[in-house]
């Protein structure tokens, strides 16, 4: 019996770890009051860039105050499908990308002109559904950031409206303002500032599906039921610049096919939410923790 007991506990734990996660578990619905169609004005000028606070300069531009939502992306897909801008290819949506110059650097992979994956449709974590004619949204996710989108899918969205993905400099300036703060709202981070790993927000259940995205602009100082958030807007009024989802950047660097991401996500510890932290992946990568927002020139 003495030997049996620990074995049973271990067996039970193993079984528990094999239980499939319910990816369609009900998700709380909250109206954050933040309009995702709003753009912030970023003035031209100097700012502190990177962990070591290099002084850099940008021109003036406008940037979305939130990540692109699932609803916005679905509107785009329906319009773009009608226009022939995107097309169905098996169980994925693809679109044309003009390609990058190849330099033959070690580990670099070719990104040639052609159709590239925008979003997969057969992944159970995909919140966008397609009935063969129209795209719809899984209920509850309308005001959540669009995820499961590749870099090409993010690039394609911005291009469709004559916008573009932000450069790393533009993104960081929009999140940081002109001082050297590590987080959009200041120097320290609390659980109520952002959606990050095990931040105990109303959308996560670490015993089951783990972290999930929160509606864009959720951390705006409002109280949702019993959950009081802190106003975590950046100096220019942008939300979710730390946590929730990584955001694709527009930079294409010479000699590497990887695309960069900023901001950390619901799946990362707070250290990755610092504004200068970079992540990268192949441009066909998609994840429930990666989204994007766009910028436009003034």
């Amino acid at each position, binding site marked *: 019996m003495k030997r049996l007991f620990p074995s049973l506990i271990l067996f039970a*734990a193993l079984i528990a770890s094999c239980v499939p996660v319910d990816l369609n578990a009900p998700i709380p619905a909250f109206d954050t009051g933040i309009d995702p169609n709003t753009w912030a004005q970023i003035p031209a000028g100097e700012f502190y860039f990177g962990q070591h606070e290099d002084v850099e300069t940008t021109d003036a531009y406008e940037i979305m105050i939130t990540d692109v939502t699932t609803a916005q992306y679905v509107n785009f897909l329906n319009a773009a499908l009608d226009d022939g801008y995107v097309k169905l290819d098996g169980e994925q949506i693809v679109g044309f990308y003009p390609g990058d110059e190849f330099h033959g650097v070690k580990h670099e992979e070719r990104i040639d002109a052609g159709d590239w994956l925008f979003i997969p449709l057969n992944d159970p*974590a995909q919140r966008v559904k397609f009935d063969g004619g129209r795209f719809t949204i899984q209920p509850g996710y309308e005001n959540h950031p669009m995820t499961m989108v590749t870099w090409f899918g993010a690039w394609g969205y911005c291009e469709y409206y004559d916008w573009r993905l932000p450069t790393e400099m533009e993104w960081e300036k929009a999140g940081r303002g002109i001082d*050297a703060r*590590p987080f959009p709202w200041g120097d320290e981070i609390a659980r109520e500032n952002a959606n990050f790993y095990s931040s105990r927000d109303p959308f996560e259940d*670490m*015993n089951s599906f*783990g972290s999930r995205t929160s509606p864009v602009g959720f951390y705006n100082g409002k109280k949702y039921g019993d959950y009081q958030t802190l106003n975590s807007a950046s100096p220019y009024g942008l939300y979710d610049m730390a946590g929730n989802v990584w955001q694709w950047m527009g930079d294409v660097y010479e000699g590497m096919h990887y695309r960069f991401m900023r901001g950390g996500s619901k799946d990362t510890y707070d250290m990755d939410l610092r504004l200068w932290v*970079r992540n990268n*992946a192949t441009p066909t990568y998609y994840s429930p923790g990666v989204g994007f927002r766009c910028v436009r020139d003034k």
Partner: protein
Amino acid sequence: MQFIKTRFNYLFNSTKGLILVAIAMVAVVTAVWGMLSGPMAELGVRDVVIKALGMKIVQSEREGRIIILYHSIAMAIVAIETYMITGLLKIKPFFKTAINAIITVGYIVTMVFGMGFAYFGHNWAFHGLYIFGLSLVFFAGVMLCIALYPWNPEYYVTDKAYAHTKSGLDLERTAFFATAVTTVISALFGAVPGSFFGNGFEVFLAENIIRYPEKTTMEYSVIGHLHIMLALICIMITLIIGRWLNFKGGWHKAAMPLMILGTIVLNLGVWGVVTPLEPIAHMIIYVGATPSMLAALFLLIWSWGKLIREGTTGIAKPTFGQKLRALLRDPLRFGPTWQMLFMNFTTSGIGIFMAVKLDEIFRVWPAREERIELTGHWHVLSAIVATIILMYYGDMIGLKGRVRQWYGWLIIVLSDIAFGAVTVFEMKRLFITEAEQQPLVNLLMYLIDFGLGTLLVILAVVMAWRLIDLFKNKGRWTEEQTHELAQEVNQ
């Protein structure tokens, strides 16, 4: 006064006392700073510790803090290995005293003032003392190289059981010497870029720049430094374990030249990353790593054979079961080489697998997933070295009977559960998606925390026992004061 003097003499003037102090220092740092990350942070323990100890944590300085933390622990481990070397090998008394004294002051100054600077506000005098401590450890390393110089006829061997040249040059001592010399040289590959980047405090963690196609020479130097220093610590502990177990015979003769060759070639490969040889540096490293790992395998084969032979003495034709029992009867002598074998599943094997599957893994996974694999495998490798040290320490303090069995097996089983879980965690993306991973992650975290946490508790118990022992007039420490490691080499 006499009470304090005798204890001080034991703790700072005997090999076993010095090792005890260093293990205790590492244990304290591990216990306290282990509460600042991972699940402890999730549970809110980190915030409590930071407040309770009055730490000053600045977000932009995290990477710098971690580098000082790594170095503080590493210097203590290097000191432990040095004590073992000066206790096991023939070293002139002056060198032994000088090396042990300098390295002790060095690692303690490094640890106390380094951690003081990194976590408790920036007192620049502390930073200076931290650098001073590192310099002392370096200086002790130079002295160790001089002391180990193998071409002194005084150290020549004639016993045919041990690897030596025709003239009598002790190849095992030469292997120790080669490892010590290359360690000292490789330290410079960290010191130079450390000064370069530290001048402006532009610190970075190597795992965060690994995918950048263009790296500066200084960045390559840092990457090379961290890899080779850990590899050299592993090579040195392998040599130490071999000496403790009295490695000899045909396997010894085959292993030692390989160890020398492997160490030198491995280092040449790593040093090559800052030269025009960089494009082929990895190939040279693989070439160097192979003989080193082969030599460790020879030690394993010899030591397991010896354990089986000794354990089946008197049995004419031992069965497989009897041989297995003989092999496993002493966890402290079986454990170190088992951990070396287990390392292949958690570190080397993973590295090779990743290299083979480069197109399917690193080219597809996001950088943060790659970072988990990178940091995971070298944390496991470091921890494996720590468990080997603890097993040797268990033997040198004379654990016997059931205590020896429990101590040894708990270290092996608990650490291997944790390391195995870390390895699955690193590789999880191969078989589970991000959206579905949480239950598996939870299980793995429980296993990791259970394994490492219980291991730390065992270490705490041992340290508490040793502390109580120090208050006894005729405690175990009085015997340890007079016994040198070389006298206890397994015959």
